[in-house]
């Protein structure tokens, strides 16, 4: 019997302390590739959350009947099945988003964050905590993608959710929506996250 506080703590762990992107550095390909705007980041985050929660639920139910040696292929097939569902749903109901995310939707199959949560948590815990853990990880992932997408969209296009936020005088920093900008923006955000985690403040001290 798990009490509710522990469910909350499983959820919270994935959100900040073990944030999949900033702390564990997992799932880098979609993180860098689709975050040219907040909306794309949100869509990729939600699709990944759906897959990790569904796959973790199934994995925690069937882990006792799956022989150890074949567990990786079994989980890979389960993940690939849910990714196919997510891909078909995106294609049918959100064609522009599906177009924007392109081949990175099927790449959710090999997002190491998903296999990581299944191996490290879902196969060793009951269904309830496994869902909480997967939801927390998915939320942490979605949050990180939206922050990165936000920074890149604001600087690279001068927009947020497609709406212009600077006057017409703003010259977009084109580099931020190009591949090089993705690496640099994520590197800088990661350093900021490390700085804040270590108890640093956002206000720079003046050099003495």
């Amino acid at each position, binding site marked *: 019997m798990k009490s509710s506080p522990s469910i909350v703590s499983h959820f919270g762990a994935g959100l900040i302390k073990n944030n999949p992107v900033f702390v564990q550095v997992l799932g880098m390909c979609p993180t860098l590739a689709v975050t040219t705007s907040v909306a794309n980041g949100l869509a990729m985050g939600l699709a990944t959350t759906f897959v990790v929660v569904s796959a973790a639920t199934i994995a925690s139910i069937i882990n006792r009947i799956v022989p150890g040696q074949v567990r990786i292929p079994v989980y890979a097939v389960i993940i*690939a099945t849910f*990714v*196919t569902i997510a891909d078909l749903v995106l294609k049918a109901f959100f064609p522009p988003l599906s177009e924007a995310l392109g*081949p990175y939707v099927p790449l959710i*199959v*090999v997002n*190491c964050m998903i296999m990581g949560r299944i191996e490290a948590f879902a196969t060793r815990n009951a269904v309830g905590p496994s869902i909480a853990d997967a939801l927390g990880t998915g939320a942490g992932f979605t949050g990180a993608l939206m922050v990165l997408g936000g920074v890149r969209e604001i600087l690279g296009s001068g927009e947020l959710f497609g709406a212009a936020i600077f006057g017409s005088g703003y010259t977009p920093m084109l580099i931020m929506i190009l591949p090089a900008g993705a690496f640099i923006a994520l*590197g800088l955000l990661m350093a900021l996250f*490390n*700085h804040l985690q270590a108890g640093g403040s956002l206000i720079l001290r003046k050099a003495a």
Partner: protein
Amino acid sequence: MEFIAVLLVAVLVNNFVLYYFVGICPFIGVSKQIDSAVSMGIAVTFVMTLTAAATWLINNLVLIRFGLPFLEYVSYILVIASLVQFVEMFIKKTLPALYKTLGIFLPLITTNCAILFVALIQAMREYEFLQSIVFGFGAGVGFTLAIVIMAGIREQLETADIPRPFQGAAVTLIVAGVLALAFMGFTGLVSA
């Protein structure tokens, strides 16, 4: 000529790591030393070339012919997982010296998104069989190039005085950004 274009695009213009962002996990994880970066690159190139051939056959001879495109992802991931397993057993048996160098990298490759990406892109671009193989090989060479350059830079970074919050993955990503900037110079070399 056509094969050279496919090769150049895969290696330089649309470099897998620096343009498509696939294979970032090994790119960051295994790029601390040049030696292991070279081994990882060779292992990836080898598996990518085989994957391109195998998934081309599956896609064109089975999935398209029998109208089963929704099985694409499931069958690709199974093909890649079994291919890696098979390559591992084959090398262990026939080339023990090579196995010693590549051994620990092979299982990691199953979850390397760059491999699945080769399969998806060759299907999307509707390459012919030989083009597909050249593309898989080129993608592997491009990955090797990127990871070896990265390892060379990181060996120098070891002695650099990096501010605490930037240590580890953060500075590696920024260096990768500068590399990607340099590779942007190849845009327009070949019209894709």
